[in-house]
């Protein structure tokens, strides 16, 4: 997968994560999963908001990126973040299972991909990849 690596530079030792998903139910669940792992978190509703929050100077250890979103989808957002030099772990989280769709998403710059619905064990598997790269 493209663009391996972790972002550093935060002051506290707590891991931080950004949930990027246009679905309110998914956002609530993903945030709760992150809370349970004591990961500081925020959520935005589409890829453009994910890019904007990084333009404002914020960075995250982990980005959980949905694929199908209005305004800017996950593929475009991932590509844009990588062009901006963002090295955070970006994990694609989507209902898509077609190899071609997933491949395009991965090639945009993902470090990992998990099929929805996201469960605790899938999230832990993503976190292990961060720790493995640290």
């Amino acid at each position, binding site marked *: 997968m493209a663009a391996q690596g972790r972002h550093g530079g935060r002051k506290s030792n707590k891991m931080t994560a950004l949930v990027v998903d246009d679905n309110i139910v998914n956002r609530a*669940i993903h945030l709760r999963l992150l809370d349970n792992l004591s990961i500081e978190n925020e959520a935005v509703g589409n890829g453009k908001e994910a890019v904007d929050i990084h333009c404002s100077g914020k960075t995250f250890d982990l980005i959980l990126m949905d694929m199908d979103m209005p305004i800017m989808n996950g593929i475009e957002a991932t590509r844009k973040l990588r062009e901006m030099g963002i090295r955070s772990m970006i994990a694609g989280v989507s*209902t898509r299972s077609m190899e071609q769709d997933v491949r395009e998403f991965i090639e945009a710059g993902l470090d990992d991909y998990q099929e929805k619905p996201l469960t605790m064990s899938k999230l832990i598997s993503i976190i292990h990849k961060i720790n493995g790269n640290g």
Partner: protein
Amino acid sequence: MEVGQMQRRLVDYTKTLFMEGFLDAQFLQLQQLQDENNPDFVVEVVSLFFDDSEKLLNNLSMALDQPNVDFKKVDAHVHQLKGSSSSIGAQRVKNACIAFRNFCEEQNIDATLRCLQQVKHEYYLVKNKLETLLRLEQQIVAAGGSIPMIDMGF
């Protein structure tokens, strides 16, 4: 009714919902995310699902009522509903959405109208079941009991 009886009733009711296909393992994931720090998590997420679904079903009705149906828009709404229902474990709603999306791709107006009815039917069924389940849980908590974790062997 004493707490033990209420708890057994809840367990039996929940198992029935799984056996009848209304809920799948993802609902158990939600229950496992609920704890003493977040005692209302399941109620909150299920309420979000209800609000979101009813908004989407309204949008779908309007979108399919147009003289020239925008199937891309219809598909986007169904995709959202499929995502929500999958995330809370509403299996029959999710499956109805999958069929719906297939007919959106074919741009088959008659079939998509039938699918809308089917999705609405499944949604209102699971809404009724979930409201009953959550009411049983509330009764147990109000009586001083705890909500039993259900092992479905997943």
